[in-house]
């Protein structure tokens, strides 16, 4: 992959494409591990009459129905699989995403309590940015949106870039350790 980044030509490109293809195949087979893991956990709960066994039955039945409908009838538009996905799975995912709004409100309530000088600065900055991003902010003071934009474009971006530079160096260092076999803790080594 490193060669493919710094080099060009059919030989280098074909090696990189082949490596990506292998990765896809391995990931496909690894999905079987996931299925086995789910079945083992939930079948075990059914066998031992775990107090939440009903959820396990629901999960196993839903997994079987989705798998069989996809394999037997296909996954194209208008098929049973597609209908189940679009009318059950997708609305449930949207519901989960919408809950995020309430969680942001509760997290913001805790974060913006002025318990120290730093929290007071955070609170004031948050109020400025929030007011600057709504039409009412401009009615209160015409330059409020400009202040909010400056906070988002200058100090906020500067901090984010600092974090990104550090994180990129950390990732490169970690990658090098893994490539050289120095870092083995992720495989249980010491």
């Amino acid at each position: 992959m490193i060669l493919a980044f710094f080099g060009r030509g059919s030989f280098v490109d074909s090696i990189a494409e082949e490596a990506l293809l292998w990765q896809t195949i391995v990931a496909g087979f690894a999905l079987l591990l996931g299925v086995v893991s789910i079945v083992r956990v939930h079948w075990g709960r059914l066998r031992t009459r775990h107090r939440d066994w009903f959820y396990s039955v629901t999960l196993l039945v839903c997994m079987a129905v989705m798998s069989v409908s996809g394999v037997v009838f296909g996954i194209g538009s208008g098929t049973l699989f597609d209908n189940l996905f679009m009318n059950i799975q997708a609305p449930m995912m949207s519901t989960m995403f919408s809950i995020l709004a309430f969680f942001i409100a509760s997290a913001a309530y805790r974060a913006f309590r002025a318990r120290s000088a730093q929290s007071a600065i955070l609170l004031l900055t948050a109020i400025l940015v929030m007011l600057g991003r709504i039409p009412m902010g401009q009615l209160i003071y015409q330059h409020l949106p400009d202040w909010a934009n400056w906070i988002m474009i200058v100090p906020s971006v500067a901090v984010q870039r600092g974090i990104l530079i550090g994180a990129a160096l950390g990732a490169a260092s970690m990658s090098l350790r893994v490539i050289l076999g120095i870092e083995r803790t992720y495989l249980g080594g010491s």
Partner: protein
Amino acid sequence: MTPASKAGTRPDSRRRHFLRDFVATLIAASSLMSLFSSEFAGAIQAGVFRFERMNALILVILFSFLILWYIRRAQRGVGLYVRPLPGISAVDEAVGRATEMGRPVLFIPGTGDLDNVQTIAGLSVLGRVARVTARYNTPLRVPVLYPLPLAAASETVREAYIAEGVTDQLSPETVQYVAGESFSYSARVGGLILRERPAAAVYMGQFTAESLLIAEVGQASGAIQIAGTAEPEQLPFFIAACDYTLIGEELYAASAYLSREPRLLGSLKGQDVMKVLIALVVVAGVLSVTFGWGIDFWAHVLHAE
């Protein structure tokens, strides 16, 4: 900020070796820089090497040299200091709390796949957490989003339990595959937190929108929460919802901090030196733009294709 590292004294022979290696690297870097001349690069533009990416290659070579150099120094026994990371130090405390309360420990190695370096960093911390939970006979729950991290996490936890001689504590529920989709995963993990009430929750790795969905449920359940990610967009959520947060590079430093392995600590030192060099380039760039000195030079050298 990174865990700053500080080297101790070194003998003269080591200093000579360092000078020799440093000069050799300078010569190599100068040779590569000479290839920047537009005529030479243009002549072999049609070749197999992407000369427009030469600056990236020089950076990679320099960075690799610094890392390897400081690893070598660490192997020679030069003392290295790593500043304390409260989030990592709190792991033992959190597991101890879970043991006292008789509740499980929840560990999430991020929601990225195994090709993401943050996932590997998360798995490194998992190895340590699994060792501690195995030692204190505390239940561990590791729900994962993708199959490849499932295999890696299972192996990490199994090795930790073998090392502590308690493989009988392992169950299929310890490391389990949950879902291949982010919001389904959040729903399952939220349910797990509310039903099993873990006393400690550790989130280490790459996270996207599900970070707050999970961390807020953990916060509401009263669990002590430790998070670490290199995603700037998710850091505010973790800082608001968790007791301790590892920011950016601290996540990658965690495995070195935990293991105290000299070679891993050495790589942190190399990383810090590189950061100083980048800071100098940033300062030079700011001065250059402010006073109009050599803007074209910096634009040419730092231009990325």
